[in-house]
């Protein structure tokens, strides 16, 4: 991580407790702009809980999540409701189990993502109801943006198809396209490669790199598919039992004894260790 620029997002001493269960324990993490930060860890490590705390779906028990917004200045995400995290702070997430609007078409899904801008242009629906030109222009602009992303994610042929009728890999891409329509500063992807075949995973790698390098969108990535995480991440944070156990570049993390222990279990015999994942 470059030390010169202030981090886009800084998580400090974040704690999330559900009754007796400590899902996230005193976790701190900095996320840099224009970079891909991977969050990995065994099942139940608290990765998705971390995302839920970040995006306002859970209120953290303790700690702070600060976003350094280029226009709005410092924002405390832990105090914002979920829709404001997306709307005002422009931190947008996808879901581990895809959450599209299945009966609506792909294009409509992407239009819903631009609701706030359009709703504003429609002046509480009055301008829209009478079809005033200001609203028509806003609608045209929103549609162009949606179509632009659909073209770039190779989904344009399916624009008029109900999202729920499409195959799984495509639905994953639609969810990313929809999140991109919210104009994210930080895009939080929860296992975007789950269920994808190797070719689709490779395409996802390219897309993520492109978004970070060329679009300047910071990406926070939860992923189990090591071929994706190790390949695209600039920085990786490893969680286990809600605690951060390691952090660093992909190579550093792969060699970290704590990480190997977390993934492969305690080494009490004299067996050779096999780091389970290689890019």
């Amino acid at each position: 991580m470059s030390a010169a620029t202030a981090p886009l997002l800084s998580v400090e001493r974040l704690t999330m407790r559900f009754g007796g269960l400590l899902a996230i324990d005193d976790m701190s993490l900095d996320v840099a702009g224009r970079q891909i930060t991977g969050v990995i860890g065994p099942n139940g490590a608290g990765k998705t809980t971390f995302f839920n705390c970040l995006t306002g779906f859970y209120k953290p028990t303790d700690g702070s999540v600060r976003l350094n917004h280029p226009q709005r200045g410092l924002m405390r995400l832990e105090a914002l409701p979920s829709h404001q995290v997306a709307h005002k702070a422009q931190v947008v997430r996808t879901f581990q189990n895809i959450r599209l609007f299945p009966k609506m078409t792909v294009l409509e899904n992407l239009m819903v993502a631009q609701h706030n801008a359009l709703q504003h242009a429609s002046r509480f629906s009055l301008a829209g109801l009478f079809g005033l030109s200001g609203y028509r222009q806003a609608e045209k602009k929103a549609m162009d943006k949606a179509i632009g992303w659909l073209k770039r994610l190779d989904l344009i042929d399916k624009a008029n198809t109900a999202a729920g009728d499409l195959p799984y890999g495509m639905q994953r891409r639609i969810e990313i396209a929809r999140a991109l329509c919210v104009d994210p500063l930080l895009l939080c992807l929860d296992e975007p490669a789950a269920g994808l075949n190797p070719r689709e995973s490779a395409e996802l790698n390219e897309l993520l790199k492109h978004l970070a390098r060329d679009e300047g969108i910071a990406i926070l990535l939860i992923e189990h598919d090591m071929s994706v995480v190790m390949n695209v991440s600039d920085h990786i944070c490893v969680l286990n039992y809600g605690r951060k156990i390691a952090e660093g570049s992909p190579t550093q993390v792969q060699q970290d004894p704590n990480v190997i222990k977390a993934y492969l279990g305690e080494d009490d015999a004299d067996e050779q260790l096999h780091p389970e994942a290689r890019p």
Partner: protein
Amino acid sequence: MATLVLATHSISPAARFKDAATVAFIALLLGIPMIGLTTVDQGGALRIATRWPTLFAFVAAAFAGRLVLRYAIDQFKARKLAHERSAAATAAADAVADSRRAGRPLLTWVGWAALGVALSLPVFFADNRYVVDTATTVLIYVMLGWGLNVVVGLAGLLDLGYVAFYAVGAYTYGILGTQFGWGFWQALPVAGAMAATFGIILGWPTLRLRGDYLAIVTLGFGEIIRVILVNWTELSGGPNGIASIPRPSFFGLELKPPGDDPTFASFFGLEYSPSQRIIFLYYLILALALITNVFVSRMRKLPIGRAWEAMREDEIACKAMGINARNVKLSAFAIGAMLGGFAGVFFAARMGFISPESFTFSESAIILAIVVLGGMGSQLGVVLASLVLVLLPELGRDFAEYRMLLFGAAMVLIMVWKPGGILAHREPTMRYVADGEKR
């Protein structure tokens, strides 16, 4: 397989007409003894009278119904086939889209035909008060169905107490009209705003509730309003209700027997006849219903309408897209309630008398049944379902105590045959066309 799809599509209009004509003929054969002839009590003696217009309407309904039915079955089969064709292959989705696109003009055509029939109905039945009255009742339910469609069909909020807003609208006009001398047109917007306020009052505490839990609360809300109307005698007249509510006027011209002020009949130099008022009321509710339809159809294509549907599909995803779920839900409740309130004002003006008995749970249930049977979110489906649910008990009057049985059986049949409602198909709010133009 493509040929198969073509085959089901290629049923010629002539074949469909022949099929419908056969059904209409059977309906005629059955209808002559059952509907065409009736017994009347004349001075103690039973005599047989004829009811040819009713019979004609019945046969025409059978003919039109069969056409629609046949078309719906074909569409359903074609779509099912297209679906099966490729459970995984992506081509399926396009085929479905194609078959839907092919089905669109016909549905539009049915809609325009229904409008034509609705507009010309009083011309053919000008002296048949029963037909025009029944059609007015159908239209009230159509309007209520379109209003509830916003809440249930689009926003996916199961509301079992919709009749409360109908009652709020009716009582607002009843009180304003009798106590403060307000006219129909003055009271209409106020009653709509009043009902919308009640929609928000109901919506606010139920924001976090979904599905069954929401249904229970809304059910309770409907009952609370009714119980208040029964017990708050000073305001609502209690169980006695409110009587002599002013009738609506035609741009200030009253529809009543000639008196001091110019009336509708005297102004236009017509002979006064009581059927003028009946027909005026019919056209009034038709206009209100059509305005409701245009309003709801347009709202659906606006950001707020898409947000309603998105909320029905996945509330959590909506929040993740930055949509304020509270505002979206409250707007759905408020607008649905407002439309119900308008219908209530019309009801009060038409009847001239309202009492809590008109606003029982069974009304809510019928309106909800109209929305569900019609196909959630479908505007034309609401019309078809209203026809079925209002006309069936009317036609079944001859069967006396069996008519509720008939009613129930019809509902069960529709649900078995089309679980998504009569018209379950959803029309996208916008389309991408390859050259980037919006169609």
